[in-house]
């Protein structure tokens, strides 16, 4: 296997298709072998799927595990003594959460790769940082969730951090004014969750009538569009609102999940999500799980070289999206670029038993 320590030094968005595909096929196959040896459950799944690991031509042949399996089964490829921490997904109350087991190696690798990807958009310097969320999120352990973990994770790319909202979700106008005065003329890193930014940050700016000048800001936001899509808010409206309320123009969404922390998919200047060298997007047709054509809508498979301590290197998400192209995005980054359409819908099922999840 490629030396794990060498991974962070690879160029994030430069490899052409053949090179990247061959690299991922070799490395993901090796990871498959690794997990089959160290995770008995995974070995049985691999055997059921029937892939001959000694004869893999393309990583698309490897079994893709539905992300939901991590909610139902305890899957790890390390002995308990080597466990460093367990990540959980932000399932809403009552739902089962994913449990992702990390050892030090995987955890460190995640941080390094995340740093490399984010660095492509923020530069190498740490920038003064505004967190577009409430200061209560870190203070209150009960609230500490994927949101808190996300904020902590991205905080390592900033310095001199402040929260835009106080503990009562009110805009900290004085704090922001002092911060912007202090950092006048500098680039500023902003981070937050899409829905929180829309519902609280933008709404508070409008409510108090304060228009900070964030034209030198770079915003990275994630967490999904579901809540905004429910309100029929488009990406364009979101960006326009940010531009109107605080002059932000450099806005980057990202797509990522706790099951593959580290290898996030950043939105470029052209509005496209990009796969970096350490991971890839495959779109599968739900009818037969065959690989879809460019432009064709299907289920999103995410493959990542980072998961060593749990068999989550090839996963089938419940998100739908489409590949927009490969290597020809006007932003100049190579690799596949794509868009997310949304989460697949739960169907009404017939049958005698009515013990299904209650609709709210």
């Amino acid at each position: 296997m490629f030396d794990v320590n060498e991974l962070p030094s690879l160029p994030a968005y430069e490899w052409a298709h053949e090179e990247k595909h061959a690299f991922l096929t070799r490395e993901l196959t090796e990871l498959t072998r690794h997990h089959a040896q160290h995770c008995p459950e995974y070995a049985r799944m691999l055997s059921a799927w029937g892939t001959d690991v000694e004869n893999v031509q393309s990583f698309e042949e490897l079994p893709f595990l539905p992300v939901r399996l991590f909610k139902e089964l305890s899957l790890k490829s390390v002995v308990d003594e080597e466990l460093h921490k367990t990540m959980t997904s932000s399932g809403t109350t009552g739902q089962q959460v994913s449990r992702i087991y990390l050892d030090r190696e995987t955890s460190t690798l995640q941080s390094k790769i995340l740093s490399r990807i984010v660095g492509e958009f923020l530069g190498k310097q740490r920038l003064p940082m505004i967190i577009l969320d409430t200061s209560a999120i870190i203070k209150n352990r009960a609230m500490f969730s994927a949101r808190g973990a996300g904020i902590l994770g991205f905080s390592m790319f900033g310095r001199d951090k402040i929260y835009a909202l106080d503990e009562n979700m009110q805009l900290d106008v004085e704090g922001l004014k002092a911060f912007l005065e202090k950092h006048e003329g500098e680039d500023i890193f902003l981070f937050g969750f899409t829905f929180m930014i829309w519902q609280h940050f933008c709404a508070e700016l409008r409510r108090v009538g304060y228009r900070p000048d964030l034209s030198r800001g770079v915003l990275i936001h994630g967490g999904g569009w579901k809540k905004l899509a429910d309100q029929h808010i488009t990406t364009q409206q979101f960006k326009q609102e940010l531009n109107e309320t605080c002059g932000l123009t450099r806005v980057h969404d990202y797509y990522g999940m706790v099951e593959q922390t580290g290898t996030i998919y950043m939105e470029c200047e052209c509005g496209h999500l990009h796969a970096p060298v350490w991971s890839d997007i495959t779109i599968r047709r739900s009818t037969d799980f065959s690989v879809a054509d460019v432009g064709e809508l299907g289920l999103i498979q995410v493959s990542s070289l980072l998961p060593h301590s749990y068999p989550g290197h090839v996963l089938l998400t419940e998100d739908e999206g489409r590949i927009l192209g490969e290597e020809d995005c006007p932003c100049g980054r190579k690799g596949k670029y794509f868009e997310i359409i949304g989460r697949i819908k739960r169907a009404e099922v017939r049958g005698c038993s009515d013990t299904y999840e209650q609709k709210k």
Partner: protein
Amino acid sequence: MSKRNNSCTWLCGADWESVKPLRPFDESVLAFLADVSAALLRSREAKAYPDVATFAFFCRRANLERLRADYPENDRLGRGLTFHIAPSNVPINFAYSLVAALLAGNACVVKASSQDFAQTRIVCRVLDELLQGVHSALAPYVNVCIYARERQDITEELSAQCDARIIWGGDETVRRVRAAQLAPHAVEVTFPDRYSLLAVDAQAILAMDDSQLARLAQDFYNDTYLTDQNACTSPRLVYWLGKETAAAQQRFWQAVHSYAAQRYPTEPVVAVDKLTAAYRAAVALPGAKLCVMPDNTVVRLQVDALTPDLDEHRCAGGFFVEYTAETLDDLIPVVKRKYQTLSYIGLNVDELKRFVVDNGLRGIDRIAPIGHTMDFALVWDGHDLIRSLSRCISVL
């Protein structure tokens, strides 16, 4: 004071306060049901719903007379008032529950699914018209209502009044309804979650001509995909017997696939559900192998051994665990109370019955040829509904 709670929506019937128990198969009930049958079979609206048509067919006078022949005794009376909780997602089930209790000689209060099913409306409109007309004497015996399952107070009120309670609809529903106390003398019949399987003789598949095979595929489809493979009667395990099973399996599944693929589009979420179930089952069941199929319509997982937790590895929408053996004996250690319907292809029904009885199996209450697993009968889940819902007057 009326016993009919105003918080419910009453679709038919009348206050039952002073009703008397009837004899099983009372003439007034047979006449009423025969008219229900005729009205439904005439109804243009009902024709769009095969389940309503099947119900109408069940209520034909000739069929009721045939059923009566199984109950020659004349020492029985209905228990009085029966209270039924129908399942939330099988539209027509409430009507069968009602008919069984009526035939046993009881007044009925049936809580139909609160989902807005056309079948409920169609059947209840016919019931209501007849009860307002020539069959008005039966109106207190035939009450159908709808209320939200959260209204446990209504469930409690009706449970306290009734002489027998019938609960359909899964373990959770049974538990929730059971929290509502019955009168000390009252009896209860419950229909919780069940698990069903199909046993196939490989030679029977190989001996079929193409048209027989196509008809078989349709029967199998009706017992599985037609209800999202989520009826308690839908087979989830396919148990292969005999020689040349591999060839038989290929022939059988090809036929099922070509029938189902045209009629049952696999929704993305169902495709993911089935893959998840397959992997989860592969972890638990020895020697699991996913079979290659043209698409996600039929998902098959072949296993080398059956385990006691086999029934947990199920998934709606076309997911089948397959097992092959010389005899059915490997079922003996795994069949538990949860096992309900054993359907079959090419096997001898008397031998199957002997297999269940001679081995003292805790489960398997029904044995049915494929295509008929859902056929309603007055004996269901091992309960004889006429005898359970009536009392015997003994003379010493």
